């Protein structure tokens, strides 16, 4: 049952050291503010799950919150590498980072399986690639046709975190535009947090929207601007300049550390 709580409280209560945590968002509605709160609360040994880890995962990894990353494409879209993730993988800084790497189709199927309370998802992929031997998939045979397929174990995060445009006062949530895998993440996770741009008296139905009823969410936090530098359709645009600047901020360890100190660690807690 969704409770409207401050973000600090939501993270304190629902994200624990050692958890498997998915903060999802496909370019749009990426829960940056929630990721920053995880960093401020110094969570450790997390297994971070995300199809497209970008800047906020670079920050979590660079601040030493994660021991493992489960992903399918890690980069700064249109800009280049994630320097902090690369430093962790290539030089074990600030600590070693284990990788479990999938394809997008595999990750999406794994979330959908988790949401459906099934043990695995099925895709036709991974065939004849080197990915199959490096990741956690198994070949299975279709019992009806004999076709060889790939089984991907379901994602069942301990905590799933997404950002949305609106919630009502009971904690029902609505998001629209590019909705990514957010519905699947919330339904697949044992505990879930949704940060929202706005709390309204009543949700107005929007074309193509995803509506998550309050009783599948544990905490809703009102965090205006909580997706920045990602965007929230109808509220603010993507801060493309910041993504470009991140390449410079994140390249060197000390500049990164200083930026995090000034912009994340010192920030007074939102909402």
């Amino acid at each position, binding site marked *: 049952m969704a409770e409207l709580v401050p973000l600090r409280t939501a993270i304190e209560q629902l994200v624990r050291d050692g958890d498997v945590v998915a903060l999802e968002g496909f370019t749009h509605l990426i829960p940056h503010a929630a990721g920053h709160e995880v960093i401020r609360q110094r969570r450790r040994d997390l297994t971070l799950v995300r199809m497209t880890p970008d800047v906020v995962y670079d920050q979590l990894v660079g601040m030493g919150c994660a021991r493992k990353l489960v992903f399918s494409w890690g980069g700064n879209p249109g800009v280049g590498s994630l320097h902090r993730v690369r430093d962790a993988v290539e030089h074990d800084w600030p600590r070693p980072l284990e990788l479990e790497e999938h394809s997008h189709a595999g990750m999406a199927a794994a979330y959908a399986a988790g949401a459906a309370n099934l043990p695995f998802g099925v895709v036709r992929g991974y065939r004849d*690639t*080197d990915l199959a031997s*490096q990741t956690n998939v198994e070949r299975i045979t279709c019992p009806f046709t004999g076709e060889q397929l790939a089984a991907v174990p379901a994602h069942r995060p301990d905590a799933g975190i997404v950002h949305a445009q609106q919630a009502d006062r009971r904690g029902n949530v609505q998001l629209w535009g590019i909705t990514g895998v957010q519905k699947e993440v919330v339904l697949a996770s044992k505990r879930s947090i949704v940060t929202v741009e706005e709390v309204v008296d009543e949700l107005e139905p929007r074309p*193509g929207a995803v509506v998550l009823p309050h009783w599948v969410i544990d905490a809703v936090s009102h965090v205006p601007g909580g997706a920045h530098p990602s965007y929230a359709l109808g509220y603010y645009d993507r801060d493309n300049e910041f993504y470009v600047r991140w390449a410079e901020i994140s390249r060197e360890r000390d500049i990164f550390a200083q930026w995090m100190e000034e912009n994340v660690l010192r920030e007074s807690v939102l909402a």
Partner: protein
Amino acid sequence: MSELMAVSAARRLQDGEVCFVGIGLPSLAANLARATHAPNCVLIYESGTIGAKPTELPLSIGDGELAVTADAVVSVPEMFAYWLQGERIDIGFLGAAQIDRHGNLNSTVIGDYDHPKVRLPGGGGAPEIATSVRDVFVMLKQSRRSFVERLDFKTSVGERVRVVVTDLGVLEPDGDGELRLTHVHPGVEPEEVRAATAWDLSIAEDLAVTEAPSEAELGALRSLRTKGAPG
């Protein structure tokens, strides 16, 4: 040179084809085709936008412009299951750090997987795009570091690669599926292309020279270049 790459790829798109588009050069090429000879091309970005009609080139595959102009926006699991795996897409664009003579691609690591020299972004949609679309178009700059005898990691398979557009020319598979040089860009000698390829690249008997971009193509390219677009 990226202009010539975009033009070479765009010309190979037929009007009305359904294209799975990545960011950067593929997005430039597909939007150039839409702005010139193929106004009815359907652009699909893996963020879930079907029939996106951006007026500015997006910096990322999930820009708001794509969702607002799309015919439909679907979830990411639906995109990969119903639309891509469902084989409803004609053309898929891929880039990579390395390609071999059979069009197999590496976008995962340079060096050993467990102790990489360079950790690349990873496969993303590529493994399934490579086996689910009708024709794969590859776009990447040509050098001995990228056109390799042996991939460090096979991220996607080359069996559906129909054309490889580089900054030097165009490669297409012969009857045995081996890539050979079929076009050089204006001012490029075939030997230059061979020198920029780590395998013994064969040259098509009917090797052609890429036609220089037309005024219409250049005009369309200029009007598309905005908003932090690469190149």
